[in-house]
């Protein structure tokens, strides 16, 4: 089996839907092991509290969009604890694109759950396409970039809440690699 990101995601989905607690696959000189265990702590909580971004951090453009505004509607429960949020920044100056092509649907929407390494957007500069991946697994709290607009080096594009993933199992995700050569 060819071990790439999409296959790993398929494996994760497969394991989530099953009672298997560990799976190990190798191919092309790489090996990946995915284990799943039920997390007692999060079970005890029932549904985990939803923590939203403080309203102040929402850019005016984002607030105008009805889709984003409605996604942020339940933000009355704001705790103000944003220290755990992971910010995904632009590694270069360029143009921000939320989708791979103008006709395609966006890579992610506000409130959507993402996993580490998942593509969130494209930053293009001088026709170099840079697929920006998520630095964390969690929930997209905020999309700060605006489709088709310029972004600066280091500008925050996404805010991810790593604890925002409301699931009752916690994934251990190990990837052990050996050089293919």
């Amino acid at each position, binding site marked *: 089996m060819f071990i790439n990101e999409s296959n790993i995601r398929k494996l994760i989905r497969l394991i989530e839907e099953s009672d298997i607690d560990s799976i190990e696959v190798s191919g092309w000189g790489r090996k990946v092991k995915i284990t799943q265990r039920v997390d007692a702590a999060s079970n005890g909580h029932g549904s985990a509290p939803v923590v939203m971004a403080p309203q102040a951090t929402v850019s005016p453009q984002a607030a105008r969009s009805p889709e984003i505004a409605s996604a942020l509607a339940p933000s009355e429960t704001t705790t103000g604890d944003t220290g755990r949020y992971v910010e995904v920044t632009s590694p270069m100056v*360029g*143009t921000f694109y939320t989708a791979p092509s103008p006709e395609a649907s966006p890579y992610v929407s506000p409130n959507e759950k993402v996993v580490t390494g998942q593509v969130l957007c494209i930053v293009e500069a001088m026709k170099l396409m840079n697929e920006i991946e998520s630095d964390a697994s969690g929930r997209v709290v905020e999309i700060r970039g605006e489709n088709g607009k*310029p972004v600066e080096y280091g500008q925050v594009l996404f805010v991810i809440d790593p604890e925002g993933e409301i699931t009752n199992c916690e994934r251990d995700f190990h990837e052990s690699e050996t050089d293919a050569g």
Partner: protein
Amino acid sequence: MPQQPPSDKLPDDLLLVLRKRPEKSYTTFGLARKLSRPPEDIIQALLRLEEWGYKIHTTRKGEISFRSAPDLLTATEMTYGLKTKLIGRRFFAFGKVTSTNEMAAQLAEAGVYDGTVVTAEEQTHGRGRLGRSWYSPPGAGIYVSIILRPKFRAELAPGISIMTALALSETLNEYMLGKVQVKWPNDVLIEGKKVAGILTELSADGPTINQLIVGVGINVNHRAGDFPADIRDHATSIRRASGRNEQRVLLLQRFLARFEKEYSKYEKDGLARSRTRLKAYSSLLGHDVTLVSGTDTITGHAVDIDREGRLVLRTKEGKASIASGEVTVSSAKPRASD
């Protein structure tokens, strides 16, 4: 599957012997002794070579000599006579693929080496920027992707697009002196029509580059009628401009050699030492242009390309350095870049 002999490398070894001295004739037995294989194997290997399109001359006395190689982008042909140290030293030649960039991305994920080159004879989903397609019929063009694992930071990666356009322009300029231009940032044009497209894709972990995949599509031996009607007016091929067929293998080898030279300069000094040449090839400098970047539109006079490879426009509000966007010359009829 790579078009390489799976396990038996005898045809390759045989080719090397025959090619080294094409003027010399060999006997089957002589070759068998030289390669320490039974004569039957040599005959089988010669037949294989002929199947692949190699022309082997046999005299009535049964003496064998090398005549010519097929113009196929196989690993054997591409690495024979390739004058590079890094780029293309590992080579994957495919027949038909969705897109070479896609194959390259998978190979890169699997951990192939820096400088690995992927080619295909045909792409079913040749890609351009933002979901656009690149017309890629079999045999006529060069569809190639180069996998790079540079040590510089991700923010310096965009200049590679421009550097690639320069390496390609200099290569094509050898075929048709003075007719090659680059429409910033990286459309390579012959007489105002697009002859090659470049799509560079970066995978980075913050500032650290995992890999940079430089995909290039070059229209080489297409005839006018080979292009679909919708792109015929603004696409061209080397053949259309020069009137004769060119050897794709040789062209790609020359390009890879240029690319390697420019890339090693880029690693040291960025575009600093390429700016003069970049500006000389530019089709935009000195013209009034309209730039569409995402959802923004700017008009101005193109005055410079800076050290970062950005296009500098003189606008009503002052100078603006542009990092991305689609440019059209205002006076000319605007048209899509691909």
